[in-house]
């Protein structure tokens, strides 16, 4: 990554006086975003359940990919065990609602805290390591979390937890797929917004500096390990919260969902779309979910075609389908 240096190109966060100018410049972009959002909102009125199920899944992966994007794309740390955070969130909600009868919404803050703690436990000792070693350590932690979930009594062992209560929102019991479609759409929009704000914050610029040149960043007074840990913990929270809603939607969770392949899948989404670029990551997440569904007809060749397409995309667009702009 040494060959390019990056300057923050995108508009800085607008101060109040600049807001109108900024809006004018961004008009095209905002119009398109509004159209897209509008389309996403009205979709449940026209689409059937199958399409909604797939798209709900896509929004879910958008949240996960954006979370991992903070770690991999913004801070440049390779994480091969991201499914662990997703698992922590899902199991927190699963255990609290099914074993202790806690209201779903109250489990979210608990899950946030739990994933933060996990993030600190994993990140704390390992973030000093070289990037390749970091990859294997995160992989190891991911496996440890999965094996714990499989072996412990409280997580329901290998069969996992069933009968997780579905939440209510303002008196509406969320139990239809179109409810969950909107829930995950809202989560995805929230994730995009937070990612955008983070990217253009002081912290975002620090991540970028550390990613491009760690030594120089440290020399400029940026606490390297602390900054990386922030990325790790924030990424963990994204995964944890997504996990809560995942548990509520599926009503049953088992350790098989949190295998190494899941971590790889999320990583592929981030990299395929374009690390560090929000629309890129969103497209990557969609590609991840839609591609295997669209090509379901070709049966056992499906995953092979998916893998080949992925390889070709990476070879011809090594920075992703829609990469972050670098000069």
């Amino acid at each position: 990554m040494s060959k390019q240096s990056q300057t923050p190109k995108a508009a800085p966060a607008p101060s109040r006086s600049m807001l109108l100018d900024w809006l004018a410049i961004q008009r095209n972009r905002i119009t398109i975003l509004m159209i897209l959002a509008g389309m996403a909102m009205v979709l449940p009125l026209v689409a059937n359940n199958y399409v909604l199920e797939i798209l709900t899944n896509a929004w879910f992966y958008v949240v996960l990919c954006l979370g991992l994007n903070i770690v991999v794309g913004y801070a440049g740390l390779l994480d091969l065990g991201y499914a662990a955070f997703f698992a922590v969130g899902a199991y927190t909600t699963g255990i609290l609602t099914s074993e202790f009868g806690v209201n779903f919404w109250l489990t979210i803050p608990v899950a946030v805290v739990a994933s933060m703690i996990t993030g600190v436990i994993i990140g704390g000792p390992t973030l000093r390591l070289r990037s390749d070693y970091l990859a294997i350590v995160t992989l190891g932690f991911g496996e440890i979390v999965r094996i714990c979930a499989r072996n412990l009594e409280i997580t329901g062992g290998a069969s996992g937890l069933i009968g997780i209560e579905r939440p209510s929102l303002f008196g509406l019991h969320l139990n239809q797929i179109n409810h969950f479609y909107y829930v995950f759409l809202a989560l995805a929009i929230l994730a995009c917004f937070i990612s955008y704000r983070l990217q253009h914050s002081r912290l975002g610029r620090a991540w970028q500096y550390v990613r491009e040149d760690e030594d120089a960043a440290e020399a400029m007074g940026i606490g390297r390990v602390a900054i990386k840990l922030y990325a790790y913990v924030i990424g963990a929270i994204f995964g944890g919260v997504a996990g809560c809603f995942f548990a509520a939607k599926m009503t049953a969770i088992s350790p098989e969902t949190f295998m190494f392949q899941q971590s790889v899948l999320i990583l592929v989404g981030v990299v395929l779309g374009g690390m560090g670029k929000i629309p890129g990551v969103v497209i990557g997440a969609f590609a991840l979910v839609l591609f295997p569904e669209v090509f379901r007809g070709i049966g056992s060749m499906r995953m092979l075609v998916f893998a080949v397409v992925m390889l070709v995309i990476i070879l011809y667009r090594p920075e992703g389908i829609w990469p972050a702009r670098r000069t």
Partner: protein
Amino acid sequence: MSTLDILLQQLANGLILGSFYALVALGYTMVYGIIKLLNFAHGDLYMCGAFIGFLFLSLVSGLLGESWGGILCSMILSMITVGLLGVLIQRVAYLPMLAAPRLSILITALAVSMVLSNGVMALTDGEYEAFSTDLGFEGLEMGNVFVTYTQIALVVSAALLMVTLFFFINRTMYGKAMRAIAIDQDACRLMGINVNKVITLTFFIGSALAAAAGVMAGVYYGSVHFFMGFVIGLKAFTAAVIGGIGSIRGAMLGGLVLGLLEAFGTQIPFIGSEWKDVFSFGILILLLVFKPTGLLGKTEIERM
């Protein structure tokens, strides 16, 4: 069985398993040493090796019978084929990516791994194929410790391969060139070493070793499957890192250490075998936190 017998038997188990890990870990470490790439597809090359060995063995079994000669022949053929496959992968997928960001090339490796495993899955319909060699259970019994002749043959062939490799790297011009390139590629180019050729050779050898391990596993365990490379790939990766990735001796040592850790890990009192992997990954993490370069790795300051 007395406790001592159990521990001795576990020692034997660990060494046998460890020699598999070591063979596969060597490929990881050689490729990493020379182009700083974690070749995630390595486990799948092991799988391909097992499948090609299976194919050759089914073909030659008519000519040579299911003898050790037949097994040896198909192992050599499989090593050559998979070696060439490794070279092809390097040329097609990794060569254009050498200048790209480190993360992109890692993802390329993941993609290659998916192409290989899904390709074999599509070809075999996801079926388990059974090796027809039924090698019998005769063996040496020392007290209560029992080792079959097959196991001894496996460990000996693994050791032979590793010793050959060791001499190749330390005693030949190509080996010297490999070591030199690992230190400074540009300087080697200036000194007139054909860097690309040596990298190609490294991929060939690494892949061939994985194939050898694959055929041996197929013959020994008796089945091949498109998914079989995943677990061993993960374990060999761990072994390479434990030993210090990039170091040839480290990979051999790391393989044996991991094999022993797992064997004794199942024997810890009060803890079931279901925690075995937590134990090996836990040791790995502790080791990296306190000695990040692995057992035999060189200290290196990384500049991204």
